[in-house]
């Protein structure tokens, strides 16, 4: 996913023909994977503890 999002959005006003991007070099792939791993590690640090209880206790009654 991290690699995919580097692709350009198609230009406005026309439906661009799909152009195949060159396959990522292994070096670049490693770098992106490293970035993703770092991000997931960072997320682990801020996640609420005890996922199951936390999610269970999130109840919203009444609204709109």
């Amino acid at each position: 996913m991290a690699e995919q999002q580097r692709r350009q959005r198609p230009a406005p006003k026309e439906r661009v023909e799909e152009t195949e991007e060159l396959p990522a070099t292994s070096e670049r792939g490693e770098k992106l994977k490293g970035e993703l791993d770092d991000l997931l590690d960072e997320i682990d640090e801020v996640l609420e503890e005890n996922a199951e209880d936390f999610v269970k206790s999130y109840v919203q009654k009444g609204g709109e």
Partner: protein
Amino acid sequence: MAVPKVCGTETEYGVVLRGVADPNPVLASSVLINSYVEQRKVGWDFEDESPGRDARGYGREGSQAPEIETHLVNTVLTNGARYYVDHAHPEYSTPECANALELVLADKAGERILARSMQAAARILEPGQSIVVYKNNSDGKGNSYGCHENYLVDRALPFSALVRHLLPWFVTRQVFTGAGKVGSENGAAPVDYQISQRADFFEEEVGLETTLKRPIVNTRDEPHADPQLYRRLHVIAGDANLCEVATFLKVGTTAIVLAMIEDNFLDSAGARKDWSLAGPVQAMRVVSHDPTCRATVELADGASMTAIELQWEFLRLAQKYADETGLEACGGETVGGDVLARWEAVLSTLERDPGLLEGQLDWVTKFALLDAYAARDGLSWDDPKLALLDLQYHDVRPQRSLYERLVRAGKVERLVEESDVLAAINDPPGSTRAYFRGTCLARWPEAVVAANWDSLILDIGGDPLKRIPMMEPLRGTKAHVGPLFATVDTPGELVARLAL
């Protein structure tokens, strides 16, 4: 000619009071809003007002905790917004905006206001207690709360014309408005991950309800403007978005579709005559439950189309409409033109691979994050850890919000500058009557007895209270009353100049 699509969003935030045995969400919402409003009242001497100032500097060390009012709080902010307790949620209604880009700014400012409110509440709560809010629409247990939109519509337009076109519109726009959700609710078929937070909750096609048997098209008729001239379409079939591109598209495209309906363009442009769906309620779920965006829905005439194919039909007409009629009613060429360009780009990318829209659409962005996390740890979709990630994506606290983590990692496209967002916490848009409301509140808070969408009541001393009607959403703009404000010093002078 369509009336200008003045617009707004009304977001109910999920709220949790932690560290309390029997938490009361109404009380939590009241504390949250009062804390924010109170600390501002204290500093409300105008030299002290400065946009973009950080809430971390607001602390009043050693001060008495403000008395907590338990009646439902309802307040108006200097940016023209309404901030109040709605049932059991804190709700932020943006000021009236003239176009989708202004709306993105006002909506994002709302998130910052909620974040500051949490900080303010932390100062008066007991140690170990905290209030946390989430900008989402479901608790995952069958309870949903809304992110409503509103649009100014010509009263002369028959409501039935709106309904006919809006049903297929709301069903299919989910492919870019969805905020994503793990699992399903409310008796819907099981699914790992779906596009919309809200789709499972719609049970009727048209109706007045918003909490039971929710309708796709809501008929609430509160114009908050001259009822002879205007309707205010109240939309409940949308998700609360964090991605600015998603908010921009949700509001921008809907404004264009409404303008086309008003100008009778959809029925006369020689396109497919009728996009009525065979079963809109069921179609809502079919579209939401398919993150590949390839599922088809059946039309009343028996044809089958994907949501994206139907969206292309709307877009082709919108492009024709822009060429022939212009986009004056929808933000002009700059904003309206950008809406069209992004709309086309998003549809075309959704067709190729929805995953490429990470950082633009919430449902894709969250899906990518959860998918990567699940892959790393070998989790199945029913693992509570993924439900937690889903919830915490929407956490409004900057340090805990997974969405904000992605922003900081450079993975999310922004449409507005953060400095402008911070300014919009205090400053109203200049393009609507919100400017008049917000400016009066900022300059003469003691004199404003009450403010509403369509009126303002001033106490100018001595005389009876003065009520200033504001029935026209596009009067009271900066261009209109800015020069007036520059020449008056007191609310009494303002009233005299307005010849009330």
